[in-house]
């Protein structure tokens, strides 16, 4: 037994050696930072075991291991549990139910791996990134008759692959850095970003909110024109309210709780025509029901002549005398390809766009990389007497908008087993018991409109710093309490707070006390909606990008992703990002 298997045995309460070996094997496939953290943590646990008991972890019995886990600081066990659960998920958690037949075939895409793409090519426009923003911009330009090439770092995934591999397996491939990107700060914030043809739209929950009017009023964009773009995006994505049929009990309980409170709630509007509730949105829809841009805007762009180069990481934008002349991209083997084009549309995502601009010598604007909003999300689980089986149904199903005017948006969200951002409490055998009873948990998530207090550093690797503003911590506490009210109203016996000092609350008062006592640094946060690192605006001092989406200080570079959003969109942002991309693309001549 290694230190890693010892730590897995202690923290997850696993005895079976074959199982432990498989968990350790899977942990070896995690992204390097997670692997490194796991090894360091396992080493520390082993050292504590030898110091306190004089014996190695793997020679201890289960009772002593549990006791040792209680010795360790709560934050340590929480930090170790997330990667361990990812690695152990297939062993300890119920498998996702098999998906029903495909809703639609894979789309016709003109994808060429970078290794097969010539080193020297030309185009009328190069779009960096094939996600929400890039796909829309590429479609607009291709339909104008331009020769468009989309440079995508990730690869193409098909529904067949999604069906053939378990969700946890896919997860590591589908996210940048295996999903292990974390913003440094107190508390640290997990920042999952999709990396695939289709970008994050392949792995998002499919929730479609129009940009709220009050948000648009704060931005330097013409509201009427933006509304028309939103209409066009909704038509493209075939956005419709989620029918109740496949909603699942998680969503139904949220509706029931909200109804009892008299709160405004409804099934979410989604781009998932034909969704059967596989609850695997976050690891790619196995039925192609979720209608991401890889199924609509990208094939439409390809039909108009656009071409996609996959496995090509944009290294830098080529610039001559203040004018963009193309893009240099790295192939997996380390060689480069260059595409010369007079127009470069950057849609690499809010963390990568500032890095790319810096690598290109275009990072001079002092506000570039700053003003990052993450739309932080936190979760709360309620334990019910009857099985909920939250992983059966629509992953993100119901929106509770009672507090939306205060910047709090509650959504019933339950990922595939092991992949939800909710971490069950306890360690060792206690954690095993929690996992065994996971089918009785209903999970709600809440996102709050945050101050743009994050910042992306770096040129090659994004180092994100995000410090929760004081008023945002207060808003998060309010959101937790509101979710507790919904869960109790729906009939929860107790709620799991995710706070390590008070993991369980049986009444609203207990929850309130737990939340009030929790330090901001102890909150579990994830940021799914990063934005604002190259914000758009009329003031050249404050905004690196002008109101038409052109990067200031250089000709021919346009930014068309979430980076340009001038502030937190306060809703799931895919429609906003796509409409913004249409706005930016409309200004490209």
């Amino acid at each position, binding site marked *: 037994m290694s230190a890693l298997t010892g730590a897995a045995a202690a923290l997850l309460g696993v005895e079976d050696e074959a199982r432990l070996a498989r968990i350790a094997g899977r942990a070896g496939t995690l992204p390097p930072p997670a692997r490194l953290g796991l090894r360091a943590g396992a080493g520390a646990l082993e050292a504590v075991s030898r110091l306190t008991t004089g014996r190695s972890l793997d020679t201890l019995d289960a009772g002593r291991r549990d006791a040792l886990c209680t010795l360790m600081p709560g934050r340590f066990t929480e930090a170790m549990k997330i990667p361990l659960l990812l690695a152990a998920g297939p062993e300890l958690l119920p498998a996702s139910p098999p998906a029903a037949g495909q809703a639609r075939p894979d789309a016709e895409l003109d994808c060429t791996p970078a290794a097969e793409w010539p*080193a*020297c090519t030309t185009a009328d426009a190069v779009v960096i990134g094939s996600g929400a923003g890039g796909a829309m911009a590429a479609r607009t330009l291709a339909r104008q008759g331009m*020769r468009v090439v989309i440079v995508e770092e990730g690869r193409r995934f098909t529904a067949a692959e999604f069906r053939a591999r378990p969700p946890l397996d896919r997860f590591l491939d589908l996210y940048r850095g295996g999903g292990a990107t974390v913003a440094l700060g107190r508390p640290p914030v997990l920042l999952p970003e999709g990396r695939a043809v289709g970008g994050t739209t392949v792995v998002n929950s499919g929730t479609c909110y129009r940009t709220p009017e009050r948000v648009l009023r704060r931005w330097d964009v013409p509201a009427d024109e933006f509304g028309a773009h939103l209409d066009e995006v909704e038509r493209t994505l075939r956005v419709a309210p989620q029918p109740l049929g496949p909603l699942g009990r998680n969503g139904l309980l949220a509706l029931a709780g909200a109804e009892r409170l008299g709160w405004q709630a409804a099934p979410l509007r989604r781009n998932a025509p034909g969704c059967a509730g596989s609850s695997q949105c976050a690891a790619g829809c196995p039925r192609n029901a979720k209608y991401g841009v890889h199924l609509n805007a990208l094939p439409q762009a390809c039909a108009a002549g656009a071409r996609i180069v996959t496995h090509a990481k944009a290294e830098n934008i080529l610039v001559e*005398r203040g004018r963009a002349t193309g893009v240099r991209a790295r192939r997996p083997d380390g060689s480069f390809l260059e595409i010369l084009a007079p127009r470069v549309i950057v849609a690499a995502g809010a963390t990568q766009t500032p890095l790319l601009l810096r690598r290109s010598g275009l990072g001079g604007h002092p506000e570039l990389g700053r003003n990052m909003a993450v739309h932080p999300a936190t979760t709360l689980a309620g334990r019910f007497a009857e099985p909920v089986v939250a992983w059966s149904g629509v992953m993100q199903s119901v929106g509770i908008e009672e507090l939306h005017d205060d910047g709090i948006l509650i959504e019933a969200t339950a990922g595939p087993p092991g992949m939800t951002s909710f971490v069950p409490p306890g360690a060792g055998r206690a954690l095993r018991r929690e996992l065994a009873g996971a089918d009785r948990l209903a999970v709600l998530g809440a996102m709050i409109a945050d101050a743009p207090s994050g910042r992306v550093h770096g040129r090659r690797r994004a180092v994100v710093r995000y410090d929760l503003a004081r008023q945002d911590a207060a808003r998060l506490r309010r959101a937790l309490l509101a979710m507790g009210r919904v869960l109790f109203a729906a009939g929860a016996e107790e709620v799991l707070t995710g706070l390590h000092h008070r993991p369980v609350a049986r009444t609203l008062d207990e929850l309130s006390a737990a939340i009030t006592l929790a330090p901001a640094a102890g909150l579990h946060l994830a940021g799914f909606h990063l934005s604002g690192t190259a914000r758009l605006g009329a003031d050249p001092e404050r905004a690196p990008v002008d109101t038409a989406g052109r990067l200031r200080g250089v000709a021919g570079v346009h930014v068309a992703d979430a980076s340009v959003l001038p502030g937190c969109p306060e809703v799931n942002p895919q429609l906003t990002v796509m409409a913004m991309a249409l706005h930016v693309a409309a200004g490209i001549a």
Partner: protein
Amino acid sequence: MRRTTFAEVMEGTVRLDGADRPMRLELSADLPGVLRPWGDIEGALSGRVVVPGWADGPASGRLRVAPVAARRIRYTLEFTALDGRRLRLDGWKSATPRHPVRSMTFLPATVTDADGAVVGEARLRFRLRRDLARFLSGFRFPADPARDPMRPRWRGQPGRLEVWYTTLSDPATGTGVWLHHELVAPPDDGPAREHGWAAVFPPGERPVFGRYEGPLARLQGAAGEIAWDLRESGGGDPLYTFPRWAWERELLPAAQIVPKPTASYDGTVRFGDRVLNLEAAPGGTARIYGHGNARRWAWLHADLGDGDVCEIVTAVSTRPGLRHLPPLTFLRLRTGGREIAATLGLRATIGLPSWTVRGRVGGGRRIHVEVTQRRAETVSVDYADPGGAPAVCHNSERADVRIVLTRGGRVERHWRLEGTAHAEVGVR
């Protein structure tokens, strides 16, 4: 302004239908300007694309060299494959500071067909060890044809006078010929006028003179009872009687140069009922461009044989103030492939039938030039400036000249031409 030409050979492979085939590019580049590493210059590219069994034929296109400014040297070529398809090769070396040699010798390129579909991808390399010496020694910097001294200079400005004139001496008969073409742009935006004249100087006789109006090919034409049909060959390097900057920048009231100081002429010149059959008749073609004629001037063109030539212009400007100065003299003596140029230190005495130029020419040398235009063999022509002011030019292609070059008081070289020097004196 000079061009840059060089030849480059690159070899490598081209991937066609999944199989690599050997490929060779033999290229000649012609860039408009002197190639500088930090510059950005684009010019013509021609040469040959060879892929055995697939393509072997001429190619032409463009080359852009900007290894620092754009970090790129881009080659675009069009060629025809053996199956008759018209193809285009587009590729560039991407200069990276981290791998300067590798990046500057490796050329990836994409071959596309007329529809833009990719046909193949080439990976070519310049073989440094084998070809560098030949590559570097093949660099040439020829003069730019755009700065051809024969090219017209007038660009529509009012008040300009542009002159081409050819003078020659028939070695068989001793007859001199003078062909003069000029363009006069009046100072008041009126239409420019082209006209000219010709004169033939048979030995010992009165010269024959005729005028013409309108544009005319320089070496074929007729004026009065004179008609000529000539071919010009050779000419030697241009002789900048006035300094080159003065000619190119047009900073002086007028300037004269001799684009072809030692040309030879074949053909016929008819005057009256006589025919002059010319065979390798020595002569030259000179140019004047400026605001008009001088107040007083004298000119000498003396072909000294063996490519040696002496050209003198001495003139007094019409400009207020300058007109009271002594004549300013420009002398160029080309001998043995070297040129002696002098302006300061020369004194001219303009007169008829003889005029002289004497003074220091540098290197401790002095020169003495004495020109004699016999009255009987001199023609007097009425000139008019662009503004209409008249002058009279006394010209002879049958002049005598004596040139003595001394050093330290001793005669170093001397020349004497009897009746084959070309000279004139202008007065008002």
